[in-house]
């Protein structure tokens, strides 16, 4: 944080800065909509997702949001589809004949549950906080300034707040230009502040935060059941086939798909079960992965620190995290930009890349 840029945002300066951007802005608008100066009304009203400053991609006119880096979501989906496909083709017919006909139904139900929760985890807004408006940012900067710092060092960018007798430090986010609420963290991959930030999951290609944590948890729990179920079925299938002295090799030759399933399930069941167990512990103590890794409430400093957000009761913690009210998305992707604000938002949009690239370095250093 040495020599970091400390730029004061002067709202009076903003209107004067807009004349230089018009050449850029005209180019930008020409790319998106044909012709049209800044002052003219656009051909069609723009939705807010089109000027969203974070690194996200939007589909279906803003209904679906994913991180820009797709991660390995296609791989995750592919693995699940392939494994289940092989299961239904190779194992189900045999098991239905020799065991019970419930097997495909249980497998099918679990499969549907897993895919739906996976897609919901990937496509839901995790709890992104919209960035501060320029006026808000200027107000905060003014407040920080007045806490009296005439030296050349930049003023402190933390604020302390007492929650349930615990002192919690709120950090200032250079990219989003606001003090982060408690439990909020800035994801550098998505370039957004996310509420109750858990972690950025490459397997689902999205951050896991306040709004999609319950989907994520349901996904990994149902995936553990599915993986364990398929593993059990494949093992039963192969052992039934290998009965009568025929041997495992014979069984595998008769049902090659089962070999593939066996390998996939064997390697994934331990990690998925482990992950489910870990997250069950987090849910029961109302912690996030981020807090657990940083050891925020483990009392390493020797002080008496406890998690101020826990309800001190495992059952209530579980209910609060998994069955609590579903907060709405704060970024209003599908709202229309008001015509008088579209100018301001567009100019902020252009300014942000130059400031954000520098601030990103700060953020990654901070976190």
């Amino acid at each position, binding site marked *: 944080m040495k020599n970091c840029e400390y730029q004061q945002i002067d709202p009076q300066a903003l209107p004067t800065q807009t004349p230089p951007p018009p050449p850029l802005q005209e180019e930008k608008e020409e790319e998106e909509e044909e012709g049209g100066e800044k002052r003219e009304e656009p051909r069609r009203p723009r939705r807010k997702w089109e000027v969203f400053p974070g690194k996200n991609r939007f589909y279906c006119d803003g209904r679906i949001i994913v991180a820009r880096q797709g991660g390995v979501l296609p791989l995750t989906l592919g693995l699940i589809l392939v494994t289940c496909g092989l299961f239904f083709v190779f194992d189900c017919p045999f098991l239905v004949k020799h065991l019970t006909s419930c097997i495909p139904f249980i497998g099918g139900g679990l499969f*549907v*549950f897993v895919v*739906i*929760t996976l897609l*919901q985890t990937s496509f839901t807004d995790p709890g992104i*906080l*919209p960035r*501060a*408006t320029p*006026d*808000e940012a200027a*107000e905060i900067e003014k407040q920080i300034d007045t806490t009296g710092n005439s030296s050349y060092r930049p003023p402190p960018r933390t604020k302390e*707040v*007492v*929650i*349930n007798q615990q002192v*919690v430090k*709120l950090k200032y986010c250079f990219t989003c230009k*606001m003090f982060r*609420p*408690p*439990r909020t963290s800035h994801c550098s991959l998505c370039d957004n502040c996310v*509420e*109750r930030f858990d972690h950025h999951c490459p397997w689902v290609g999205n951050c896991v935060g306040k709004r999609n944590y*319950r*989907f994520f948890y*349901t996904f990994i729990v149902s995936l553990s059941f599915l993986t364990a179920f398929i593993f059990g079925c494949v093992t039963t299938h192969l052992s039934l086939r290998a009965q009568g002295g025929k041997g495992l090799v014979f069984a595998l030759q008769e049902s090659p798909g089962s070999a593939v399933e066996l390998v996939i399930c064997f390697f994934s069941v331990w990690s998925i079960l482990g992950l489910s167990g870990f997250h069950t512990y987090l849910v029961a103590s109302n912690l996030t992965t981020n807090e657990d890794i940083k050891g925020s409430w483990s009392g390493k400093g020797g002080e008496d620190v406890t998690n*101020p*957000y826990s309800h001190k009761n495992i059952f*209530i913690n579980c*209910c*609060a995290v*998994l*069955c*609590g*009210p*579903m*907060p*709405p998305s*704060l*970024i*209003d992707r599908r709202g229309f930009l008001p015509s008088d604000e579209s100018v301001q938002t567009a100019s902020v949009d252009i300014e942000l890349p130059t400031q954000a690239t520098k601030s990103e370095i700060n953020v990654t250093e901070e976190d």
Partner: protein
Amino acid sequence: MAETHSLQDLQQPTVSSKVYVQRDYSSGTLSKFQTKFPSELESRLDKQQFEETIQTLNNLYAEAEKLGGKSYLEGCLACLTAYTIFLCMETHYEKVLKKIGRYIKDQNEKIYAPRGLLLTDPIERGLRVVEITIFEDRSIGSGR
């Protein structure tokens, strides 16, 4: 939107300044705003009026985020249907947010607009602040 209505009524007055009422995090991550009366509003508004507005907003948000039988039921039902009911049903939180929108509009019309002020719904600012816009005090009937 309420903004357009009041602008038309007041014949596009200029914005003098904006006051931001910050969040109160003393109870954790629940949505709650500070009831401290900003000094910039002293000339325009009663302290009691302001505190009442903010307190009502806080109560409404508490109602939206309350952990109780109804929200658990909604949550469990959603889990059983793999959360697909969120696609077709309006959640309790969304219903209360609409109520908050109506309350703010009502307060603007009755109390704030006549004093040259405008409350912005916090949801439009990501539930970070309650933005109060102070318009320049113009006498009635003057043009630009």
